[in-house]
């Protein structure tokens, strides 16, 4: 299934990421994966959290611009060529990846990756059809 990623606009100012993390922490929200994309003067923090709706509420309440985006989280065999085998499937099926990043935690002996597809439904279908284990909301909460 598809999961919701939260992205937040951050000005390039001291302490802004800290602010986001503490707001989420105070709201009892756990960050499972996080990456930051930077541009000149600003950046976008993207994360997978255990309670995306609650995360949106607390962030908006604090005046942040935040957005939910559909992503797909998958298990990747933690061995050489593990990620390559997944990318090969996507490459062969011509699925466009906007960006991807890894989880902080591991799931048993597998690594976890987040994929942001141009077309999330298509990405999800291709991965499922080819036997890639896709994570659901429960997996994220239980990590």
């Amino acid at each position, binding site marked *: 299934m598809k999961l919701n990623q939260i992205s937040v606009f951050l000005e390039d100012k001291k302490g802004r990421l800290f602010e986001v993390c503490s707001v989420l922490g105070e709201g009892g929200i756990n960050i499972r994966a996080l990456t930051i994309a930077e541009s000149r003067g600003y*950046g976008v923090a*993207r994360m997978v959290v255990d309670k995306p709706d609650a995360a949106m509420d607390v962030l908006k309440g604090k005046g942040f611009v935040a957005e939910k985006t559909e992503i797909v989280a998958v298990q990747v065999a933690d061995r050489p060529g593990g990620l390559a085998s997944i990318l090969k499937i996507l490459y062969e099926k011509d699925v466009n990846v906007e960006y991807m990043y890894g989880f902080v935690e591991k799931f048993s002996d597998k690594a976890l990756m987040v994929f942001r597809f141009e077309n999330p439904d298509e990405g999800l279908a291709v991965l499922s059809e080819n036997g890639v284990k896709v994570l659901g909301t429960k997996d994220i909460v239980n990590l």
Partner: protein
Amino acid sequence: MIWNEKMECSPVEELKNVQSDRLRSIVEYVYRKCPVYTRKLDEAGVSPGSIRSIDQIKQLPFTVKDDLRDNYPFGLFSRGERELAEIHVSSGTTGNPTVVGYTKDDLKLWGEVMARALCCAGAVPGDKIQVAYGYGLFTGGLGCHYGALEMGLTIIPASSGQTKRQLKIMTDFKPRVLACTPSYCLYMAEEAQEIGLDPRSSSWEIGVFGAEPWSEPMRAEIEQTWNMLATDIYGLSEIIGPGVAQECTHKAGLHIFSDVFYPEIIDPKTGKEVGPGEKGELVITTLTKQAIPLLRYRTRDIVGVTYETCRCGRTSPRITKIQGRTDDMIIVRGINVFPSQIEHVLIGIEGTLPHYQLVVDRKSGELDELEVVVEVDPTIFSDEIRKLEGFQQKIRKEIESVLGVAARVRLVEPKTIERSMGKAVRVVDKRAK
């Protein structure tokens, strides 16, 4: 409804006679009562008795803002301090503030022109009006108040600020008319949405918006967001405050009440009248004021004017929305830039107007730099940097193609650009003067 049909719809020739009579009296009056004008008219070689027709107005000297400041506080007054009924002061960012005064008759005049304005916007006696212009030394609040009182509206003198309370007043009392600055009206929409109030279901049907220049796209946004008619009101404290000119429901220019405030449009550089249809600086002569009448006051507002009779029946000339200010205009690398032009570019890109500010700076030995600071809102934001950068790029390119000036675009977090309850701060000039 037309408040004063006799004056507002009078045949042009009759109006001209009224204007000529009034000009003759006011020139004699200020010459006699105000030493500053005695000197100014003498210096210009104008003998007050020689002014017989409104067409001779061009022979009179201009009055500028510095005349008020230099004669602070009461030097430009034609009446003694004990004859004043009210005094208003506008904060000066540089030097002395501007002081204006009203006799009791002036306050009556203010009520009269503001009543004309409110009628012009579509209000009818018995309507409730929420006056969310600041009350106090600023002329916006009390000016609207006097007009509403004169025409028989029910006044809710909310003054500016305390947005949640404004929204509660609107929800509970259901006023039909709202008077405030256009930027505050949009700000209230943000607040409304935050507290789960649908702006489109508001009781406000008519907005009387002014005290700052605003564009057509901003009007469209207000009308769309609040589901109301947004009309433009024009005024300045030096002339009387709000009530100098007002749009009717046809929204085809602002009717200037020229039987009392006589308009001319001049080229700000040469001081000469511009050709028909051309834009220029609005110059106003107060034809009947007592406490501080002004001859040919240079407003520094850039407008166009039409003398055609409006579909509403009013014969008074109509000025365009303020296109900019001779002093709000910034010159970047020799190119004239008005905030309204940038506003058009921004609205054209996403369909809504984000909060923005123009910052002009010049590092020593370098060229001017124009920076457009834009607050990121949900319509602009994306999780993909590529799209955000694309947005910046688009603004940059548009500005360059429309204005011919290079600009940097900086994206900032929401509500980080200064928002005032009164006027939006659109331009910050950091260059050493």
